[in-house]
Structure formats: C-alpha cells, structure tokens
C-alpha cells in the first residue's frame, strides 16, 4: 500500500534520512523504532509533504505521492496523527473531529465513523463540547487518534502516541490502538520510542538509526535479535 524507496530528506544542508526503503502492505501494522533524532518524525513529515525529499520515491496505492500537493495527500486516504498530538486548541473536541473528516470519504462515513470513534474512545464523547486545548495530554492524544480515524483513512500514521504521557496512560493508548486495529483491520504505520510495546503490537518492524534502516523483520525476528535486545529491550 505504501512503498518508500531510496528516500533521502533533510533540512537545508543537513541530511536526516539516508536512502530509506520501507514497505507497508494493506492490512499490516508496521512499527518503526529507534532512538531520538533517528529521523522518524522527518520520515512522517516527508510522507505528508511538510518536508521535501532530496531523492527517492514514495508511492501510495500506486500513486506517485511526491507529485501530489501536501494538502491533497489526506484526501488519498493518509491520516497523520502527528508528534505531540497537535490538536486544534481553540476548537472543541467535536470540531476537531469534524476537521478530521474534511476528506470526501470522511464526510460520507461521518455518522458511522463518529459512533465507532466514541465507542473506542469514550472520553471524547463525554468531552465533545470541551475546547481541545483544555484537555490533558492523554485525552488530547486520544482526540488526535480519533481525528485521524474520522477521515476514513486507508493508512493511519501514528507518530509517537506515547510521547510525554504517564506510563499507564501510554499503555491504555496502546491497548486502544490494538483494539481499533483488531476491529477495523486498518493499515497502521507506527513510529515509537517505546520499542518493546511497539514491537509487541506490530507485525513488522524497522529499526531506524541516524537516518538509516539498520534492521528490519517481523516482530519475532526483531525481538530475538541481539542488538535490539541489548539496545532497546534492556535484556
């Protein structure tokens, strides 16, 4: 579904991504793990068009993504749940969800989507008229996920949903993501620093270090790998 080939990108003269190749098949849950500054967020921003690549190709559903203007990419079915949540603080929870549903498919499926989102993330239903800026970090993260789901995406990209959250809240959010995936079969691409949890829930993983893919494989292979065990899993 999403095929990234030989992608390089960076800010001005400083390269952040070097010849990255990543594949996400339809229905897969792929995790990209790695330390801070490995280029994970830049990779997502390049997919969404906020960062311009210096080389390589991205195709989504057979479409050359780099030829599509950034705001149009959401309309192809890519939902980006950004790092640090980035909900719209002066809009209410409901209005944030409506913004998620700017796409044609989001508008068409609004009723059924909103019911499912409220079922998966009931706190959003309770707080539907609250301004998003006044919610806690965990609630904002759930709103950011709900906002992504409201577009009826083909691919949900999650950039560090556990960032800045208490461990128990982060666990809850992981649990919700697994449940959402189990019920909807949605294709997901997750970037995470919490390597153990990410590899546990995903079926395929990539390890990104200093802008290079240093390792890839299904979750058993990765979790069995010595380097991963030592560096990330603390075993």
């Amino acid at each position, binding site marked *: 579904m999403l095929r990234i080939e030989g992608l390089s990108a960076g800010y001005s003269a400083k390269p952040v991504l070097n010849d990255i190749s990543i594949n996400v098949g339809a229905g897969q849950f792929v995790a990209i793990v790695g330390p801070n500054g490995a280029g994970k967020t830049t990779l997502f921003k390049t997919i969404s068009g906020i960062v311009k690549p210096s080389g390589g190709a991205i195709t989504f559903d057979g479409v050359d993504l780099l030829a599509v203007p950034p705001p149009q990419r959401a309309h192809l079915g890519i939902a980006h749940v950004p790092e640090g949540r*980035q*909900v719209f*603080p*002066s809009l209410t929870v409901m209005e944030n969800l409506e*913004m998620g549903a700017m796409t044609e498919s989001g508008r068409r499926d609004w009723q059924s989507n909103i019911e499912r989102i409220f079922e998966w993330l009931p706190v959003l239903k309770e707080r539907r008229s609250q301004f998003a800026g006044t919610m806690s970090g965990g609630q904002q993260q759930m709103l950011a996920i709900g906002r992504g789901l409201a577009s009826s995406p083909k691919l949900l990209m999650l950039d560090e949903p556990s960032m800045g959250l208490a461990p128990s809240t982060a666990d809850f959010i992981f649990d919700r993501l697994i449940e959402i995936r189990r019920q909807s079969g949605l294709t997901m691409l997750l970037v995470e620093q919490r390597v153990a949890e990410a590899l546990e829930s995903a079926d395929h993983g990539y390890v990104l270090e200093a802008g290079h893919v240093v390792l890839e494989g299904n979750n058993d292979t990765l979790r069995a790998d010595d380097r991963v065990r030592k560096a990330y899993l603390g075993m």
Partner: protein
Amino acid sequence: MEGFLQALAAGLLIGAVYGLMCVGLGLIFGVMRVINFAHGDFMMLGMYTAFYLFTAAGVQSFFGNAVGPFVSILLAGPVLAVFGYFVHRALISHVSGTRTASLEGEGHYAQLILTLGIALILQNGGLIVFGSVLASIRTPLSSSAWELGPFFDMSIFLNKARSIDMIVSLIMMILLSLLITRTRIGKSLRAAADNPTAATYMGIDVDRAHRTAFALGCGITAIAGGLLATNYPFHPFVGLEYVIVMYAGVVLGGMGSIIGAFWGGMTIGLVQQMSTLILPTQLQNAAIFAVFLLIIFFRPQGFFGRMVERT
C-alpha cells in the same frame, strides 16, 4: 447626566462600526499572522468604491438618496474582497503561508516591507486617481436624528445614519460569527489559524484558507469604511488615521481573537466619545491611547487573548 448618556450612545454607535473595521484586520491577523499595514488603505479603497458605486454607477438613481448609500456600501464589500483575493494571490502569498513556514521569522520582515509598499502605492495611486478633494457619502439621514425619550426630562438624540451604520455593523458581525463558528469553511479557517501544519495533515489547503481570510477581511473592512464615510469625509490618505485605531482594537481584543477584535473596536469607540466629556475634542485620540496603555498594562493578552503560545 444627559451629556453622559448622549456620549455613551454616540460611543456605542461609532464603536460598533469600529468593531467591524477591527474584525476585518483581526481576521487576517488571526488566521495568517500577517501584519497588514495596508489595511487602512484597503478601507480607503472601500470608501471610494462605495462612493463611486453610489454617484457614478447608478445606485443613487435606482435606490435614491436614503437607501442608495447603504446599498453601495454593501456592494463595496464583495468588490474589495475580490481585490483582496487577487492581492493575496499576486503578492502576499509569496511572503506568507506554507512558502515561508520553514523560514526564520516566518517571513515577517518581507511581509512588513511588502504591506508598507502596498500601502504607499494605494495612497499615492489614490491621490492620482481620486484627487485630494475631500469626498463623503452623505445621505439626508446623516443630518437628522431620532429622539429617544424624554425619560425624566432627558432626551437622547441618535443620528439616523449612524444608527443604521450600527445596525448594519451588528448584522455583519452576527453573519461573520455564524460563518466562523458554524460552517465548514469557518472551522477550517480556525483550524488553519491554530496549527497550519496539522491543518495540512487534515487535507486543508492552508494557502487557500489564507486567501479566503484575506479576501473576507478586506471586504468586511471596506463595508466598515463605507459606513464611516456616511458621517466622516475621506481622502486618499485616510487609511493612516484608521489603521492605528484598527491595530489598537485588535491588540485590545487579544491578538488572534476574531470576536475579541470587535470588542476592542467597541471599546475604542466608547473611549473616544466619552473622553469628550472631560477632554477637548483634539485629545480624543490621546485618550484612546491612554486607555489602551492602561488596559495593556493590566491585561497584556487583551480581552480575549490566550496567554499560551500557539503550538
């Protein structure tokens, strides 16, 4: 007491129009974060557009002297909105929005120079095209009044033209609030203002949202300008006098708050009129800024401003 009530009424009447004028600028600043120094001159163009629509384009002969001016003023709004749309497309979009999001200072320096340049061109261009003779959109209503009262032997006189100006301003303000809070376009404008990057992730074309905001802001201020012109004569450099009031209103309301800008403008109208009770008329504007400084001293974020930086 009678003088106080009279000044209060006059302040409310002019305040509503100032409020509308400030909202036009507040919308542009709130959504785009662009400091538009040319906004007073867009308003001046709006005044002349209404003036020529009334006198030369046949509105006067069709609607008459009482209704005609207000029809022309309302028509000047869309005309200036289209003008603003193209100014944004041709000039402003090059130094704002997604093109400059990654630049240091987000292109603010270029915006300053560009909007100042546009202001100079409009002022001097206006001088060539319209001449330096004072113009005004007078109606028979401008020099007649409704009498409220008498209550306890006090009567308040409301200038008819100014009263209609206030009603038109309030209607425009209600329509704009509905647009901003209820419609899809309005919500996407607010989303683009809150966080342009996240708005792009939602599939909102931020540059198009900016263009919409700029066009709307120009149209709204043009209507406010036309309304002011029913009582105050104008000339090609009149924008300079108003742009300062506009910024004071936007800052008072809270930078970035669109509805706040209306209350900021209203406050300025009230202070301006009430100050005449205790100060000579020449000090009206000094009074505005004294109150402005006081409010900013005690409430630096303005009436409706948020203390937090936007993410």
